[in-house]
């Protein structure tokens, strides 16, 4: 245990995802030794992101205004929605340049072990977007693991009876993994080869 402020910093860093106690300590001492100006830039960036960035009220992606860049772009098609788990998946799919429709970010996947059920995801909002009949196809791009598959099945069962075409990314993605780890070519191919699960 260190004294007051140092330990507070270590504790806060340790709460970040992917940062264990050892790394938290290493980062804390790195910051202690760094220039005051560098540390201020980091602190400003943290505050700035909290002040300026929020979630798009349509799709749940990160946004700097009420709507995100994708939702505001008039050149994109309103007929296709790609459903992903997290905003970082939007970035991964945008990199492929394969997709010209809109997104819907669920905010996770069905995961009973972590107490996440359908009601904890942005599913109602998704169904709301289908109401006016403009959306022709929904592409389910949840992660290629057990939880992502279960979520995709759950959504397909809800949406197929609504008369919309539902498709799932082709297999061939690294199994058991995260969408964001798939390289552009593989992900692009998974998009092209998506299969219809029901319409």
């Amino acid at each position, binding site marked *: 245990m260190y004294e007051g402020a140092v330990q507070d910093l270590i504790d806060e860093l340790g709460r970040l995802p992917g940062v264990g106690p050892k790394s938290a300590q290493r980062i804390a001492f790195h910051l202690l030794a760094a220039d005051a100006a560098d540390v201020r830039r980091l602190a400003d960036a943290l505050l700035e992101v909290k002040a300026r960035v929020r979630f798009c009220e349509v799709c749940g992606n990160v946004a700097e205004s009420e709507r995100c860049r994708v939702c505001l772009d008039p050149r994109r098609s309103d007929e296709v929605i790609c459903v992903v788990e997290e905003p970082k998946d939007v970035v991964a799919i945008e990199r492929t340049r394969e997709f010209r429709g809109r997104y819907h970010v669920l905010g996770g996947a*069905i*995961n*009973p*072990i972590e*107490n996440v*059920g*359908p*009601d904890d995801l942005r599913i109602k909002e998704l169904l709301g977007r289908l109401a006016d009949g403009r959306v022709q196809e929904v592409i389910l791009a949840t992660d290629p*693991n*057990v*939880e992502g*598959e*279960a979520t995709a*099945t*759950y959504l397909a*069962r*809800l949406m197929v009876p609504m008369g919309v075409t539902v498709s799932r990314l082709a297999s061939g993605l690294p*199994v*058991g993994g995260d969408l964001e780890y798939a390289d552009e070519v593989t992900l692009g191919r998974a998009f092209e080869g998506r299969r219809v699960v029901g319409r």
Partner: protein
Amino acid sequence: MYISHLSLLDFRSYAAVDVELEPGPNAFVGRNGQGKTNLVEAIGYVATLGSHRVANDAPLVRAGAERAVVRTRIVRGDRASTVELEITPGRANRARINRGQLGRSRDVLGILRTVLFAPEDLSLVKGDPDGRRKLMDQLVVQLLPRAAGLLADYDRVIRQRSALLKSMRALRGPLSGVDMSTLEVWNAKAAQLGAQVLAMRLQVVQALRPEVAAAYDQVSESDGHAELAYRSSLETALSDAARPDDVAGSILPADPRAVPPSAEELERLLLDAMAAMRAQEVERGVSLVGPHRDDLVLVLGGLPAKGYASHGESWSFALALRLASYRLLGGSSPAGAMQESTALPTGLPTPLSTGSTTPRFWNDDFGTGAEPVLILDDVFAELDLRRRVRLAELVAPAGQVLITAAVPDDVPSGLMATRFDVVTGSVTRAA
């Protein structure tokens, strides 16, 4: 295949050791606690990335050291490869294949194949179903390495589904529509993956049955009628639902040559069973149907071996299971020996191992030199003289068999041509 070289650094009791091995039988002899099992444990680790004795890696690293290194040279046909494995507890192990970079350890799976029999295997007969499920699943993966992903996914689905059932139990009220449809999704996944696991297991068990019967008779010099049966949680669930006629004994057919049900059929049955068990599952907060609740029943002379068989019989059964696995994985046996004494309960005209038409998810042609290395840890001390001689005949034709013994006289001389003396962390080839 055979191992031509083994070297260890800080593995178990060994600071550093180098051993040149021969094809055919190799015997490691030394008093208790000298490090014989440690040697074969290291070899098993290279094949399976796990120890047959401990579930975590810490005890594998020599007390006081930080990591252990196991290097092996494996000869298959006219090709040799080296595998170097670095074991660092608490961190991901790393491996180097030939002269490549240190990389992921799981890339070494499949390079060395072993079948290891150790005294711990007695728990296959006497212990919980868990060990027997592992035996079947390990065989499935050895026959089809990519099935490992399926097994891991199934395991994950069951843990998710059980967590959901537990949270439903905690609610203690009628289930909401959302809960019901979430459960149905997990049911669908559990049935889909569970059926594939089950179908593969059943095919493995069908293939194993005649081999086990033959191997048991050979090691025990009897007509013990060692049999395997598959006890499925599916059968129990559906007969509870008063549909016994649908399933009674149908999961694994009585005839060892009959074709077991397909994955599609099993998926349907699993869904039915989960529907029939819903109230019970929610009440208990546990997933009650599926291959994770099944058992491989070992039967000797019509009685379950567990609880009935004598110590010696249990021991022979455990050994027979490993010898049968060895055969299934492409291991050789003395010409005709396995075939001649095949004692199938129904008196079939030809043994299954040669004339089977049952579908198999694996390819029986493992390629040249694919025969696994057979490892017999402390086996001979448990056998009487006649059985020792029989076992020696049985394993003598193996491409390579590694034998450990505390008492040299226990091992028939035919297996002692290549002999190593193991004394407190040193291994020397006896003249």
